[in-house]
């Protein structure tokens, strides 16, 4: 049944540090690589070498520019994948029961052999976390690398989602957000971790750590060069023209 569990024993999820992410897209590539070769239907590309390529991705990095009231604009790289919401609207709309939230760890998954590819769950998701694979006709989404995190054939250090393992900057963290003492929960508490679109009431498990406030006013390296004092004829002209 696509009823949501009343509560889940764990709330496995990601914490993404927007202060650290450099926007290298390594998580996008490693996610696509792992999830194409492992669990479920491969993440297909359409017209991959043609004029209009597009493909299925479970994780995408957007880049935003934020303009504060004073001071220069900031560029913020913004990786986005399934947030494994506690009140996941994508689960309850599913007519076949293919979409479900696991009671044991809170991971939202798609049973691909039951998915009819109606696309309604992708409509219900505010975050664009679900993409209908155009080759397989089934809905694809982040599994939190379910085939890595419990995989005892892998060394322990690799039992985290591929995106977390790959991130060269250390901007991605994986853990149980239902346990207040876990490292990820501590991080969220310390840094004021936030929900995306809280007004829609989805209660996302994944949290985003906001960029830290700038601790100094930005340097103005061009100022000394720009402030050229004219001398000679140009200086005379400069002084003369200012009189008008």
């Amino acid at each position, binding site marked *: 049944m696509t009823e949501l569990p009343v509560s889940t024993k764990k709330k496995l999820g990601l914490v993404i540090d927007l202060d650290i992410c450099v926007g290298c897209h390594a998580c996008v590539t490693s996610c696509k690589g792992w999830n194409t070769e492992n669990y479920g239907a491969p993440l297909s590309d359409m017209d991959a070498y043609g004029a209009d390529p597009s493909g299925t991705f479970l994780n995408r990095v*957007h880049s935003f520019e934020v303009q504060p009231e004073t001071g220069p604009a900031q560029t913020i790289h913004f990786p986005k994948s399934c947030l494994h919401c506690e009140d996941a609207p994508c689960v309850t709309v599913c007519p*076949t029961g293919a979409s479900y939230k696991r009671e044991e760890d809170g991971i939202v998954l798609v049973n691909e052999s039951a998915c009819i590819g109606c696309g309604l769950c992708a409509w219900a998701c505010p975050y664009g976390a679900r993409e*209908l694979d155009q080759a397989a006709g089934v809905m694809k989404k982040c599994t939190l690398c379910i085939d890595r995190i419990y995989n005892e054939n892998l060394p322990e250090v690799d039992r985290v989602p591929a995106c977390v393992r790959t991130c060269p900057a250390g901007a991605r963290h994986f853990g149980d957000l239902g346990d207040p003492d876990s490292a990820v929960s501590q991080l969220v508490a310390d840094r004021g971790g936030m929900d995306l679109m809280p007004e829609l009431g989805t209660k996302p498990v994944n949290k985003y750590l906001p960029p830290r406030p700038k601790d100094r006013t930005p340097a103005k390296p061009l100022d000394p060069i720009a402030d050229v004092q004219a001398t000679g004829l140009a200086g005379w002209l400069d002084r003369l023209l200012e009189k008008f």
Partner: protein
Amino acid sequence: MHPAPSVIVFTVLSGLGLGFLTYLGLGVIQPEGLNAFLIYGIAYGFAVGGLMASTFHLGNPQRALKAFTQWRTSWLSREAWFSVVTLLLMAPVALFAIFTGFHTATFGLPGAGLALATVFCTSMIYAQLKTVPRWNHWTTPALFLVFALAGGAILSGAASAAVVLCLVLGVLLVVSFVTGDGRFAARGSTMETATGLGRIGKVRLFEPPHTGTNYLMREMIHLVGRKHRARLRVISILFASLLPALVLAVLPVGVPTIVLALTLHLIGAFAARWLFFAEAEHVVGLYYGAR
């Protein structure tokens, strides 16, 4: 939202067929014999044809039977159940009318109720989505139901009911257009809430995640329809509501009048349903700096 032709054809035609079945179930018209065969054929043709069209946009239609399992949470699953039960329940009504000329209210009355319930389930598939504020409102089920009732009244040749329902439909269309325009803003989702970066300042998209397009953008960010929004709104109100009401009020009721009124109504219904999708904005567009 992407106005997929299969979904537009499905919702308009199945709504019309189920609306017609409502009047047949209620016994507003009680055809007999060959006449009944043709009339129930038309009603079933629209309803079943529309429901068949709904499977064309599925990625894996061979598993469509699984859609009957999740009736406890899913409006799509409820729609599947109600449509099948309606069509089964109305079958004896049609058979009795064709072979005995008798109208059976025992099956007809519940059949009429279930036909409307099916239309309601269809509308709730859209109205339940908080992610599409324009749809997430009582006007969505109201529009779907009145479209079904007005279309059914035209097909039944119930002229005075059809005139009234067409005019109600026109008012509802105006209400849905006008109130729908401000609903996205009223919901409060912005690029600032979508990214959580509003605490720093004003957010704009600096660079999208990829240079090409993707499933999400094709499915949920549709800009073409909004260019012709004003004209299409006038067309849908004129054709779905005013012109058929005028035709039915002025011309004597008969097959040519019904065909003319229905043709006009369907042109308006298709325009309105196309707009219903094309105008609707999904919050995911905020991540792409577009709606």
